[in-house]
């Protein structure tokens, strides 16, 4: 009995001491939380983003910090465990008192932490392309919404490659489901027949692609020009592309355009047999611009490895971080409300040679690039949208979402304003 109580008391003491310890030297720095998985299944993608954030913070400190204070990164490991994301988000905000958090990769991790950011009124920058259908006051979406990635890619394939038959292959989770719903609606609106669309879902980490790839091959041999739109996620990509290469599916015959395959994913592959397959992003490492060259050099210097690649979510963090810095400077404080109000309208250079602006719906404007895989693991940009594409929180191609708009500026201040009922939904009581 007594040992039990001592134990609990010790545990509590440990935690409180931890809190006070980290609070002790808090005063003269501005803290920035980094909430990316460093272990577990998502570490493969997220660790790079942690490094990128550390580099950005480091560079900002070299420039003299922010508001006369140094920035201090607080790194935690939510270990690809979604409830742990909730816990760690709360810890960052409540215990470490960070001013903003940069983090999350999967939709489910973002969904897990949303209530925490709302409750504790903090700021999250989310750097990954996602399914849209969300706009939250405390979250800034610096990755692509479906209209900034999927739709331009399909347009490109139709116009440039004359594709008439479509395979929509994805991992069975929300992002591919939603993207494919949007694409299906879009393709049908463009006059593609039902039987010319094949939709296929596979589980996470699917590794045996023999059947599906041969189905795709069979589907593509029906006489019409066929393309695959892949929303296959993470780990499943390497075996998928290896199978594509070995079954001899050439980009000239059946091009595959992917939304989740970037330089980082290609690093695990021999790309020689994959030349010509495509990806749609808002940034490629191969983009020629001064800002990008500078960024890549800094990255190689920071990681002490000149083989480390850069990718789209890193650019999103680059944009997001600079926007936050600018907004804090504009507001003169790191106070969440002030920064949230200052952010819309802020415009910072992106790495593709232009400017990206934060919009009132908390999404940003970006160019859409289509790249073809090269044998050196990089992409060649073969198409770029003429102007910047503003991110759309609510898709126009889903019936229930088409009537919603998002505008966090003063009079409306609503993430999901229903233009039919003229009401703001989901605002609690």
């Amino acid at each position, binding site marked *: 009995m007594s040992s039990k109580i001592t134990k609990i008391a010790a545990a509590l003491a440990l935690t409180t001491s931890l809190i006070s310890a980290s609070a002790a030297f808090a005063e003269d720095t501005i803290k920035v939380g980094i909430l990316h998985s*460093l272990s577990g299944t998502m570490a493969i993608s997220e660790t790079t983003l942690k490094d990128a954030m550390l580099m950005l913070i480091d560079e900002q400190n070299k420039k003299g910090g922010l508001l006369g204070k140094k920035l201090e990164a607080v790194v935690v490991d939510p270990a690809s465990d979604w409830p742990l994301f909730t816990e760690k988000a709360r810890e960052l905000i409540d215990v470490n008192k960070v001013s903003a958090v940069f983090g999350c990769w999967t939709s489910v991790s973002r969904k897990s932490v949303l209530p925490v950011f709302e409750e504790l009124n903090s700021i999250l920058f989310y750097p990954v392309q996602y399914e849209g259908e969300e706009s939250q006051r405390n979250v800034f979406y610096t990755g692509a919404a479906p209209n900034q990635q999927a739709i331009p890619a399909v347009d490109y394939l139709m116009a440039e490659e004359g594709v008439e038959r479509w395979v929509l292959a994805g991992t069975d989770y929300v992002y591919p489901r939603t993207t494919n719903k949007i694409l299906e609606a879009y393709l049908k609106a463009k006059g593609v027949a039902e039987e010319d669309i094949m939709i296929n879902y596979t589980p996470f980490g699917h590794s045996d692609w023999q059947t599906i790839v041969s189905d795709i091959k069979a589907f593509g041999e029906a006489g019409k020009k066929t393309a695959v739109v892949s929303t296959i996620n993470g780990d499943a990509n390497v075996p998928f592309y290896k*199978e594509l290469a070995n079954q001899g599916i050439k980009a000239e015959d059946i091009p595959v355009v992917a939304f989740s395959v970037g330089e980082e994913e290609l690093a*695990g592959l021999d790309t020689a047999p994959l030349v010509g397959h495509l990806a749609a992003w808002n940034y490629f490492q191969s983009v020629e611009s001064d800002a990008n060259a500078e960024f890549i050099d800094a990255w190689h210097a920071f990681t002490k490895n000149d083989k480390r690649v850069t990718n789209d979510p890193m650019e999103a963090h680059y944009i997001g971080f600079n926007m936050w810095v600018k907004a804090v400077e504009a507001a003169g404080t790191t106070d969440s409300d002030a920064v949230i109000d200052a952010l819309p309208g802020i415009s910072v250079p992106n790495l593709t040679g232009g400017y990206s602006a934060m919009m009132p719906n908390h999404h940003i404007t970006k160019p859409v690039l289509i790249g073809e895989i090269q044998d050196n693991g990089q992409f060649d940009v073969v198409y770029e949208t003429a102007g910047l594409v503003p991110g759309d929180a609510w898709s126009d191609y889903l019936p229930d979402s088409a009537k919603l708009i998002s505008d966090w500026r003063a009079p409306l201040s609503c993430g999901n304003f229903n233009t039919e009922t003229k009401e703001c939904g989901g605002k609690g009581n």
Partner: protein
Amino acid sequence: MTLLRALLVCLVTLVLSSAAVPPSMADDLQDTINALADGSLKDRAEKVDALLATGDPKVVPVLSQLADGNLYVRKADNRVFLTESAGKNFTLTDPVSGEVIPDINKRTLDKIKANNSLRRQIRDGLSLFALNSPDPAKRLEAAETIFKAQDASALPAIEARLAKEQDPEVSAFLEEARAGLVLSSDASESDKLAAIDVLREKGGRQVLSMLTAAAEKGEGAVRDAAERAVVAIERVLAIWEGVQNIWYGLSLGSVLLLASIGLAITFGVMGVINMAHGEMVMIGAYTTFTVQQVIQSTAPGLFDYSLLFAIPIAFLVAGAVGFVLERGIIRFLYGRPLETLLATWGVSLMLQQAVRTIFGPTNKEVSNPSWMSGALDLAGLSLTWNRIWIFFFALAVFGLLFLLLKRTPMGLQMRAVTQNRNMASSLGVRTPWVDAFTFALGSGIAGIAGVALSQIGNVSPNLGQSYIIDSFMVVVFGGVGNLWGTLIGALTLGVANKFLEPFAGAVLGKILVLVFIILFIQKRPRGLFALKGRAVEQ
């Protein structure tokens, strides 16, 4: 473009008859080639057509290098060169004069980009050149490309070639290509019927779609013949599909077998619930990666044999880790199988993190050697080489292990110790060492599996986790402690999975297989191959 193509075909024949090219034409050619560098990707298509239209054999290397991404323009004077990478710099070759300029810095050059449609255009266009190549293999390839491209304007070129062709195999292909084009043209009924016969012999999905189109558009005898051919081809395809499915199942089964065979030793024979088994596979895969890196930097010529080096090294590395694991941890836990689960789980976490720290968290590239790339086309089947190798490799590993256990003194000692430790020990067997070597053997085999699995999947710190559950299912399904059970179990589960996949989908198929295992264990609580009788109980 079709018009251009027709023109081009005439030119090709023309050029082939004329021996030399006058110098003024060479200048023109130089300009046309240099023009490739200007303008956007879209404009480039016309320029490629223009080049093809010259019919000059010199455009062949230019265009194929453009398609391969090796065509560069010198910034200083906008001249286009063929390039070859030589260390950090390039060696340039002038496409017209053949002049060679070595050691040029990459920064002074700009790459001329190509995209898919351009590459396709070049491939189809060059196939007409290749049709008259002295190499029969190239002619064969060209005939195939023309068949796939289905461009009616190629018909005269094919017929011209067909008249001259000596090689019977190439002739057959040309006939098929011609038949395809005839069918969609407005040729006479008898020509079309003959074409249908040729195509029907060829079979395959593309022919099917051509014939289906012909049946829809055609009338009378052509329609009937096409419909009959469609039915016949569909029947053949259905059979091949079944065969293909069995192969896919066996191939998946062989992957499961490889993943679980080491576990059949450490868990099945020794009774250690080895949650770190997957990490042994991972170690094997990372060893392969390291071996390839070393070979690439020291002896790139040996790259194709990298796996042959990797197999013994992976065996030793994973075996050594297993040995240390057994000596350091497992040996204190014999007789407490469930405790081994906890300890090895801890070990697996540490090994994952160790790999993440050493190699980084991202995927590593392990390439297929050339003999494991591509596919073997066998009648209606397309079998990829890496899967074929892995299938036989899995069987070989199984066979060797089986012989080792049943036919060698080492195997005898292993079986003796696992069956009755005290008795074996009193007979003079050094049980601790046998334990250690048995565990090292199981781990080493898992390492070998890692070499093979690195050829089809990710090489990442999570690699082991993706195989561990399946491996346990296989060993338990087959019957713990029975190697045959593991073999049959793996192949059965593989085939079952692949037969469920087409109509249930990949996810539901896998769920059904799991449910099947659960129910099967009810029926046979000790797996597929379990001994009956008193010895097994108690």
